[in-house]
């Protein structure tokens, strides 16, 4: 009873590929900060990094994605390490929240919906909601406080990165290329990062990078990826961009 979907979904996806090819999306905005948000001018900024969502693998000749377990391990430790270093430079105190509890699982699920909605209806201008014009006010609600009540942190950071290294140019890759507006850096590399207020649940900042670069399996690549994902990260009060 599943194949019906498979066929229809395949068709839907192929059909969808058409218009995407024809008119590349107008990327109007790839990140957003909640109106007026800055970190306090002084004092420690304590951030909890939720277990990052990482996919890494190889795009095979047929244009399909195969997970590579060893790359995955390398990417995870390099990205987390790079994030720590980048945070230190920004004067943030980051701790890793690696265990998945019920509160995190449900808020992570909600977060995915929120990010999808924000990307679709706000960033990139593809399907704008008029009520969101001039504002960025999505929230996960105050239930986020239950995720890590003991944690010594005021903010939560979600991180998502997807990397596929391709063996040859394929339809899937072409599709991605079109979505990215042209440049093909050998596979698909994209991700997003978001900062959440651990009291109110408000999304304070979201950055989506559809044309990321850098080989996240290496320290240098991971460092550059983290910088890309942290583009537009909120500043301290009274300061410019870090």
């Amino acid at each position, binding site marked *: 009873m599943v194949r019906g*979907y498979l066929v229809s*979904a395949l068709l839907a996806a192929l059909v969808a590929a058409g218009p995407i090819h024809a008119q590349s999306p107008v990327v109007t905005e790839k990140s957003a900060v909640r109106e007026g948000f800055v970190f306090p001018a002084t004092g420690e900024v304590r951030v909890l990094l939720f277990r990052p969502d990482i996919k890494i693998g190889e795009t095979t000749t047929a244009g399909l994605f195969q997970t590579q377990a060893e790359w995955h391990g390398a990417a995870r430790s390099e990205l987390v390490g790079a994030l720590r270093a980048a945070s230190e430079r920004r004067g943030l105190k980051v701790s890793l929240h690696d265990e998945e509890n019920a509160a995190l*699982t449900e808020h992570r699920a909600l977060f995915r919906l929120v990010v999808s909605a924000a990307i679709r209806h706000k960033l990139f201008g593809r399907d704008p909601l008029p009520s969101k014009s001039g504002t960025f006010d999505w929230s996960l609600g105050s239930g986020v406080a239950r995720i890590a009540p003991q944690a010594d942190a005021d903010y939560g950071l979600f991180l998502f990165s997807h990397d596929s290294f391709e063996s040859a140019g394929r339809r899937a890759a072409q599709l991605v290329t079109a979505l990215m507006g042209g440049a093909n850096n050998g596979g698909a590399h994209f991700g997003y990062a978001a900062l959440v207020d651990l009291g109110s649940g408000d999304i304070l900042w979201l950055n989506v990078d559809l044309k990321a670069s850098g080989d996240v399996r290496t320290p240098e690549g991971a460092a550059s990826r983290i910088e890309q994902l942290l583009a537009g990260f909120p500043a301290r009060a009274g300061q410019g961009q870090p």
Partner: protein
Amino acid sequence: MRRLLASLALAAALCGSALCSSAQAAPQVAQILPSSAGYQPSDAVEKGLWLEMDEAERQIRASKFLIDDPELNAYVKSVLCRTVGQAKCGAARIYLIRTPQFNAAMAPNGMMLVWSGLLLRARNEAELATVLGHEFVHFEKQHSLQSFRDIKAKSDAMTWLSFVPGGLLAQIGLMGSVFRFNREMEKQADMAALDYLGSSGYDPMAASQIWEQLRGEMEAQAKANKAIAQAEEGNSFFASHPNTKDRMEYLRAAARRKAPSSDSGEEQYRKAIARWWPRLIDDQVKLNDFAATEYLLSGMARGNWTADLLYARAELYRARGKPEDIKAAERFYRQSVAADAQLGESWKGLGLILLRQGKAIEGRRMLRQYLAIAPEAGDSAMIGAMAKEPGK
């Protein structure tokens, strides 16, 4: 949109059937079987598989579709353990999934998924043991890994699973499809599962019986709707288990060579799923799939229509709601309350069907019967209002 995302998560191309069925048994280096404790994946392909499966398992553990009733889980596990033996069954981690279709699958990392539609369809423990044993053999013999490697070797057109968020259906669809076994593997799993039935003392005839019933259900559906029949053939489970007639025959023949046993565990089975049965049949009735559900109910009754089965049948007819269905539903509800006067839901259904026919006075009386039995029901306020005599 939600629907589309779900579909996209499943979006996939089927490999050519020639490609799929061409897997040869890969030369096996002597190694620890995956059913033994401490087994670890050996190379990049297997490690990648395990990583994805572990991730899928993490999601399934948190899934809203998980039936987390500890008693029911323990029961299904105990059936597997009796079937394949205590020494081996520890390798399996069973997850019961609330989905009304017939399906079961086991991933190379030991995650075993059992859909609630299987629990509904199995009529006794031996039939459940047949399917659990079958999937366990695929796992034990590393069939998935073999076909995976083989296809990878034969073409680069392989692999799977993207990172689409959530995607429980995707994960299950993936398992039913990535691990598409060739006919020899299926037969091997069938025969080994039959051996398991024999060694654990279950009635060996159960193996052919469950397939026979499934075949019948598909045929009933096919008769009702040609298009449905085709879609049904596309069910991931059936698609990889073709030629049901053939298999029924070889299973029946092989079962005759086994020591006969009358232990099908029907009583235990009924008791074990009793608490879930109303929900399982409710899920099935609400699929709006009249022909298959009618066949299924008859297969369960086998001439002996209990109050529960009559209730389910009445609900099915009332839901379809053709004029002749209304009459039939009323009859089944009446038989149901006659068989068990404590079945509140049947009184409710009877009241509703009478009201539908304008028999208001009797209908309201039946609704009050329901309320007397189930005063705390979620719909008691509404039913109470409907049961009230006008002008009071």
